[in-house]
């Protein structure tokens, strides 16, 4: 019930949601069940963080080119490209990490492989190596993220104020971030091993924070709760739960309750409509009442889901369901909503 009372939960400023831990962190890892809008939220967070003239890097690790589609730019090559300017003049750059390229980059660095690398790629040698040792893939991807977080410019300041990573979905994120586990796949010595040790230090430091994107539906909420427990066991810092596509309640709590049970007073509704200049017939009344019932059931179900999430003690950020979501305008709108809730 607590949530339906808070009618403006999605829009009101909740500055406490963006905690000191969030402000302190420089690597924001975004995970969520497939279909919850993880990539869109990651992009919105990058934009929100980039306001006030900061420079933020948005990283994609699943080779899906989701960022390019979202920002309506050609597929991203394996290099950092500017994709958006934030309000206040900040800048979002994007990078789609390519595992093969990352591995060859390492080999080139340590073994001077040069152009032979390319023919190896053609032969499928790199895919082979990462298939043989799936942990290697994760070490390479997180390793690249670490490199961007720690990179410094000629002025010796970090090149990026923050890095936002669109990480694998909840089901795989702990394995992905638990580089210590992945290292058991690797030889006990060697350059990648020592690189991995540095990644472990970064991921388990206050510089890294994991946010979870969820919808207010059974499956995503269950997966979110499982992932939180798992992340905490692994000693990774969990930041916010970001609720996406929440339904904004359009009826007061008492009316919601009645409507959800199909007990909305139809004669009052009919009178109200007449006051508004609409002459209702039975069919219209029934249709409107059913729509109100469906809306109310949905809102109350969502309130239950929200209560389960709140019980984790983690701060919640809420984003509304956008009618025309999934495009660039939507990303900016969601970034504004995050800023309103204290993200900076």
């Amino acid at each position, binding site marked *: 019930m607590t949530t339906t009372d808070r009618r403006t939960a999605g829009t009101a400023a909740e500055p406490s949601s963006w905690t000191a831990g969030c402000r302190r962190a420089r690597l924001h890892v975004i995970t969520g069940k497939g279909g919850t809008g993880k990539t869109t939220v990651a992009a919105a967070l990058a934009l929100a963080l980039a306001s006030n003239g900061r420079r933020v890097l948005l990283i994609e690790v699943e080779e899906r080119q989701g960022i390019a589609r979202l920002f309506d730019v050609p597929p991203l090559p394996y290099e950092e490209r500017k994709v958006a300017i934030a309000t206040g003049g900040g800048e979002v750059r994007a990078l789609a990490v390519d595992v093969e390229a990352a591995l060859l980059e390492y080999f080139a660095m340590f073994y001077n492989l040069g152009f032979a690398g390319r023919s190896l790629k053609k032969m499928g040698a790199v895919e082979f190596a990462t298939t043989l*040792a799936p942990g290697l893939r994760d070490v390479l991807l997180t390793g690249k993220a670490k490199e961007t977080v720690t990179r410094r410019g000629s002025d010796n300041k970090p090149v990026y104020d923050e890095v936002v990573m669109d990480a694998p979905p909840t089901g795989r994120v702990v394995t992905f971030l638990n580089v210590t586990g992945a290292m058991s796949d690797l030889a006990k010595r060697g350059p990648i091993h020592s690189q991995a040790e540095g990644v472990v230090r970064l991921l388990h430091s206050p510089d890294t924070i994991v946010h979870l994107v969820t919808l207010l539906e059974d499956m995503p909420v269950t997966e979110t709760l499982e992932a939180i427990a798992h992340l905490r066991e692994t000693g990774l810092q969990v930041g916010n739960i970001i609720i996406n596509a929440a339904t904004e309640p359009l009826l007061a709590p008492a009316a919601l309750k009645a409507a959800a049970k199909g007990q909305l007073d139809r004669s009052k509704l009919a009178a109200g409509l007449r006051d508004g200049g609409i002459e209702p017939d039975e069919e219209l009344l029934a249709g409107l009442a059913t729509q109100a019932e469906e809306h109310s059931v949905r809102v109350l179900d969502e309130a239950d889901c929200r209560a389960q999430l709140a019980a984790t003690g983690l701060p919640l950020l809420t984003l509304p369901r956008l009618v025309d979501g999934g495009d660039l305008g939507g990303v900016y709108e969601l970034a504004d909503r995050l800023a309103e809730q204290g993200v900076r």
Partner: protein
Amino acid sequence: MTGRVLDLGPVLADRRTKIVVTCGSGGVGKTTTAAAMALWAADAGRKVAVLTIDPAKRLAQALGLEELDNDPRRVDIDVAHQDGQLWAMMLDTRRTFDEMVAAHSTPERAAAILANPFYKVISTSFSGTQEYMAMEKLSTLAATGQFDLIVVDTPPSRSALDFLDAPQRLSSFMDGRMIKMLATPSRGVMKIVGAGFALFSKAVTTVLGGQMLQDAAQFVQLFEDMFGGFRERAQATYELLRAAGTKFVVVSICEAESLREASYFADRLRAEHMPLAGLILNRTHPPLADLSLGTTEAATKKLQAKSAVTAGVLTIHSERLAARAAELHMRARFDRVHTDLPVVEVPALPSDAHDLPALREIARRLTGT
């Protein structure tokens, strides 16, 4: 919306329909849709098995699937027709793989394969293994002839139709060329890539360790004999999917990303000559009241102060009209590309479906009966 309508009732009731495969991206209600179709067919008097991949907990409970046992179990419910039966199972990828190995090998050899550390990687985390095993299980179930109809859910693939490609990918990976080259890099290989390969081999050995390469090489040796059998079997499954008794349905919600995936699925299925029945457009929001946006908004304004409840009810209606307009826009874009693809819309239920009455309601919306 001039396109054709997908009429699923006759498809599911037809005795000639032996297999229905649902595909689509994650989070669109594929599993629920598969379960609803299976229940509808059981209610119509058929003996149906539904093969699910990763059902929501409460849906799994409703289907009596508390545990993973990799064989269909009869769901203990009353179906509308006395001859109807509903069976359900949840795929256990690893076990299906184990069973496939056992079926193509001697017991000793199978034991050696199962004990190889590298087998764990291939049978659980090789990309596409889950898709492959879903089809393998379907093949096994179909071969028993135990069911009139098998409805199969597919994993939410990252790339369209991984389940068609996985057998091929696995066998090209396992044909051992790379593994042999890495294990014994001195023989002949130099001619192909020159010194770079020796360096690469050294690098890989440094990174992964020699033990893993040895395990992999041993694994491939053990596996080699079975490959003929695997390939034949994969080919048979492929033919089964193309057979007249099989129908594919693509499931999508009315959003850009999901429809883009659906588009890939539809194109790919057609390119492979797979029998595509049509698209299920899930969780749509057709308005239930006939009141234009203009009238609604004018009345809402007037009522804001007077009657908050009526104003709220009208705002719910306006939002529904807006959501519907966006859906129709998306759908029109899809229809332009897939002009002759039959489509059925399934209006959204207000709650997640996790019991049998809800599944029957979805089935009713799916079939229009």
